[in-house]
């Protein structure tokens, strides 16, 4: 016990140096640069449209990172990320619109619900081998989509029109922007930290060799579920924030296609990087806006997706970063 306290004290004393070293490192410097940049955006423009694009990107970043944590680090590929996104979205939306909750308490409830559902769905699907896990989660998404659209259940589930006219987090887009930004930063810090501590090591062992992990004395079932509920927690956070940005939600949110978006964004940035999901999300959303006037965005995306899957297993982030890293090294004279 004493040695652990000693350890902790040593770590706390080291922190400022650790921080300095990190910023000097390439990845750290780049991250700080981007984060500062994001903080400055509302000073450059207060147009709800532009802020909205950034907000959507940040929301998707959290969403995509939540998938990456589960798939890239624990090796469990789920096609059901949209389930938690959507469920939390519906709950937050309905609490905001019909029950006049404050945004943060609605959000907490939405996240809690996501975690509970994550526990159930994880319990069912995590027992299945890879493709079946993907299938099972995909199918649950489909069933939710259909069930929420049923006109018979309209009184409780709002039917295929969903909920609209959801009150925003704040009348000012700028305030909403900063809330989402801060929540995104916190989410990423948490998720990245998880991958670096012992829990992350256990997760990766399950990814690399689940039987081997079990043979090393790890309760793989327990840790798979922990990973699943962490993932569903952040997906739920993203869903709740989405509904506050979008002001509306409908059953289409449960489509496997949306779960797929998380995958695409993570793949764009590099699977198993967490931070890559942010880059992937921004690229995804910005590209979608640029392309919107030229052609049907979905069509373009489907082409891009096939190309990515077919040719880039590493993600764009890695090779782009490598070139930037060489540039950075020259800059600081290494």
């Amino acid at each position, binding site marked *: 016990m004493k*040695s652990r306290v000693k350890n902790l004290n040593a770590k706390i004393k080291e922190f400022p140096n650790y921080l300095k070293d990190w910023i000097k490192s390439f990845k750290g410097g780049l991250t700080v640069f981007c984060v500062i940049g994001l903080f400055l955006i509302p000073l450059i423009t207060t147009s709800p449209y532009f802020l909205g694009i950034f907000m959507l990107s940040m929301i998707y970043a959290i969403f995509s990172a939540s998938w990456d944590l589960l798939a890239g680090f624990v090796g469990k590929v789920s096609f059901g990320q949209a389930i938690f996104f959507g469920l939390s979205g519906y709950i937050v939306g309905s609490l905001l619109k019909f029950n006049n909750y404050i945004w943060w308490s609605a959000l907490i409830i939405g996240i809690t619900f996501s975690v509970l559902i994550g526990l159930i769905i994880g319990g069912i699907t995590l027992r299945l081998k890879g493709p079946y896990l993907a299938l099972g989660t995909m199918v649950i998404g489909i069933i939710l989509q259909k069930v929420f659209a049923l006109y018979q259940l309209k009184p409780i589930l709002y039917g295929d029109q969903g909920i609209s006219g959801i009150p925003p987090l704040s009348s000012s887009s700028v305030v909403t922007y900063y809330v989402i930004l801060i929540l995104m930063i916190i989410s990423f810090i948490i998720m990245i930290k998880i991958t670096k501590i012992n829990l992350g*090591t*256990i997760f990766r062992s399950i990814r690399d060799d689940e039987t*081997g*992990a079990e*043979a*090393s*004395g790890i309760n793989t079932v327990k840790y798979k579920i922990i990973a699943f509920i962490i993932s569903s927690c952040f997906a739920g956070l993203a869903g709740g924030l989405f509904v506050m940005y979008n002001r509306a939600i409908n059953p289409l949110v449960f489509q496997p296609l949306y779960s797929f978006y998380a995958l695409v964004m993570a793949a764009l940035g590099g699977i198993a990087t967490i931070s890559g999901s942010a880059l992937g999300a921004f690229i995804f959303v910005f590209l979608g806006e640029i392309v919107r006037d030229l052609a049907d965005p979905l069509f373009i995306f489907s082409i891009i997706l096939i190309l990515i899957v077919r040719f880039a297993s590493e993600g764009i982030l890695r090779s782009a970063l490598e070139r930037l890293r060489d540039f950075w090294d020259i800059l600081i004279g290494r």
Partner: protein
Amino acid sequence: MGVILEVKSLTKKYSGLTAVNDFSFEIQKGEFVGLIGPNGAGKTTIFNLISGFEKPNSGKIIFNGINITGMKPYKIVNLGVTRTFQLVRAFKFMTLLDNVKVSCLSKRGKKLAQDYGIDEYASTILASVGLVDKARIPPVILPHGDLRKLQIGKALGTNPQLLLLDEPFSGLSHEEAQGITDLIKKLHDDGVTVFMTGHVLRELMHLVHRVIAMHQGKFITEGPPREVANNKIVLEAYLGRGEKFA
């Protein structure tokens, strides 16, 4: 000394094939026992059954007085029984240090490792198997001999009382096998009970104090290595199938 492992009438059937047939034996604390039998005799199945990776159709497995039959593998590890695999299993995209660290993060391993600091403890284990200079390397580029060492390091991380080694010399040159032999001997001297299967028997027969022989899922005989090596049925089982023996 005391019995550490009791296997009673263990049977495992697959559709049409009986892999293990009414198999019984005991292992005393501190022993060094070998399990021999030609290819397909059922040795790995026995290991799978003891370590919980497969459930027997009937029979009991008792470790330190606890009935571990059909328990989940990780629970059995945390009670003190660790097994290695015939084909080395490693976490391919993690460093050697992390590979051992995972074992140290098991409930049982953690209890011991915590007092030294988990990373330090894992390093020490790596050092004890002679791999500490490769701590930051992933297993993918290691030669087979080192992988076998890693395997033992990973097993050590769980602080086992009983170590089940499934063909630990498989695929090794004589020099490499010698290195592993020394490691295992030291382990045993430190108090770990070792139960080992072997197919190439040269190293095994010199290491173990007692040998259990099996063929086609059934118990044949047991006794000191010299005796078993000269047992008629055992010889037939091996030579009759054209297997290498000594």
